[in-house]
């Protein structure tokens, strides 16, 4: 499918009719300009429903809930029908409504250490599914100090595991994504991210672990990453300052706290809690995710337990729950925009919809249309 841009980067009318948001051809829609919240648009009813649910502010993706009120139930339903991804070259924002709706509060663990031991990885995934995690990211670490200049290719989850375990309480198998963590202690390490490196593009999520204050500043303000790791195994080598952290929140980058070291060791626990508290002082619990970095299955913890652990890290109850669910999803979607062609266009086939769903949804679209006219 090819996309045509009209004046001002707005998709022309032809494109929209072709993708037929209301008409359910089932493609992702790209909407590369600052969407406005409006009740009616000159195009189709589907679009107006979508625009009513704008979830983008200041050029960064925020997620669907809390930020903009969902106008009514009907628009929510219409949204579920129309999968849409919105991204723009300069301001990077996403509407990934299919995800937003279908996985409103599922849990994710965005850091499971990669080992070449497939059996162990498999058992970690099984445990994660048993605990109720719907998404797990397998983490590859690239440390440039160890003279390893090459970034590994990510494992293909479908090749590794022929059948993925079913998530507890759900009927879907667990979703496995890949993640790259760059440990940077020198500005030159960041070149991998700046240039359009083919290797980084293979990963779903890119995280960076800045060792110095300058790099932390760069990661927050300019680098093309989704997550910034916060040190948990040593005393924070620099103070968090407000401007970079505010910039990171504005850009939709998340700060990651890892809890496994704190479970293993008492000193690490002290460092983790004190570093987390000093971060919370600045970011006020916003844009924080918690993940395990588990190497063994028994290092994982249940999502609700992790959320309570968040209370010790200075998060409020709501923020702590968001840190294992909705924030993780937002980070994942932020990573999704990287895979677009030059950050502009991304099309993807929608998954097959069952017949019953089809029946349900068609009247909603019709209703929406009649209301507008």
């Amino acid at each position, binding site marked *: 499918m090819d996309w045509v841009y009209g004046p001002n980067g707005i998709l022309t009318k032809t494109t929209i009719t072709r993708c037929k948001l209301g008409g359910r051809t089932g493609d992702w829609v790209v909407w590369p300009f600052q969407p406005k919240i409006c009740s009616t648009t000159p195009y189709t009813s589907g679009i107006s429903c979508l625009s009513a649910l704008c979830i983008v502010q200041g050029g960064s993706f925020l997620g669907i809930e809390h930020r903009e009120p969902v106008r009514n139930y009907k628009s929510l339903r219409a949204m579920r029908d129309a999968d849409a991804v919105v991204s723009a070259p300069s301001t990077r924002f996403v509407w990934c409504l299919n995800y937003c709706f279908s996985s409103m509060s599922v849990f994710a663990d965005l850091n499971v250490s990669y080992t070449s031991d497939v059996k162990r990885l498999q058992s970690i995934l099984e*445990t994660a599914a048993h605990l109720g995690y719907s998404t797990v990211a397998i983490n590859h670490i690239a440390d440039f100090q160890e003279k390893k200049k090459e970034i590994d290719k990510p494992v293909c989850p479908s090749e590794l595991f022929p059948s993925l375990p079913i998530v507890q309480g759900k009927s879907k198998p667990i979703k496995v994504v890949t993640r790259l963590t760059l440990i940077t202690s020198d500005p030159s390490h960041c070149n991998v991210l700046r240039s359009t490196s083919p290797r980084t593009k293979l990963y779903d999520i890119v995280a960076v672990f800045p060792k110095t204050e300058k790099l932390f500043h760069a990661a927050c303000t300019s680098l093309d990453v989704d997550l910034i790791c916060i040190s948990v195994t040593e005393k924070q080598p620099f103070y968090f300052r407000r401007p970079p952290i505010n910039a990171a929140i504005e850009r939709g980058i998340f700060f990651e706290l890892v809890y496994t070291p704190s*479970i293993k060791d008492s000193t690490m626990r002290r460092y983790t809690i004190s570093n987390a508290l000093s971060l919370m002082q600045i970011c006020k619990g916003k844009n924080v995710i918690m993940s395990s970095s588990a190497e063994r299955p*028994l290092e994982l913890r249940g999502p609700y*337990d992790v959320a309570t652990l968040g209370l010790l890290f200075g998060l409020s109850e709501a923020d702590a729950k968001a840190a294992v669910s909705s924030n993780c999803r937002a980070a994942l979607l932020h990573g999704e925009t990287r895979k677009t062609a030059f950050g502009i266009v991304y099309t993807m086939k929608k998954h097959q919809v069952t017949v019953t769903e089809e029946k349900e949804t068609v009247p909603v679209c019709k209703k929406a249309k009649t209301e507008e006219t």
Partner: protein
Amino acid sequence: MVRFKSRYLLCEIVVDDPLCRQIISQGLVHSTLKEALIRAHGDFGFACCSVSFAVKYVNAYTGIVLIRCRKAFYQLFWSSLPFITCLESRGQRFPCFFNTLHVSGTIRTCQKYLIQYNQKQLLRLLQNSTSDVERKLIERSIRSSLEDVDDEEDGQRSSEDELEHQ
């Protein structure tokens, strides 16, 4: 009359070594929780939580534990649970962790949830079972569990329907 409110935490002990199941007992769980609490929150935290702290139910076969705690401090108590890494008895250490399944205000709702949860686990076992003998055994236990429930509650109907579909 003032009612002292408490919270009941329904937890599952996840282990990888099946031998560990032999040593799970009320006393052991109690001491493990106490230790973890003291490690995480110190004397103050332990004193707060120990007011009506009790291990109400332990099932060594499924690794289910039911813990009671005073409502005002249950989060303090809960936040110490992730720090448990092993069960220790007579010099043997078994790595494990506690996974919270449900938190509620009464012991009754915990029981209801546990029944539902166990039924789901049975279904899952049925799906994963390989041999015919195993299959028959599981089917029999599912049937017996449904008969018990039928008399008690209407709320279990949904899971029953699921069964029939299968």
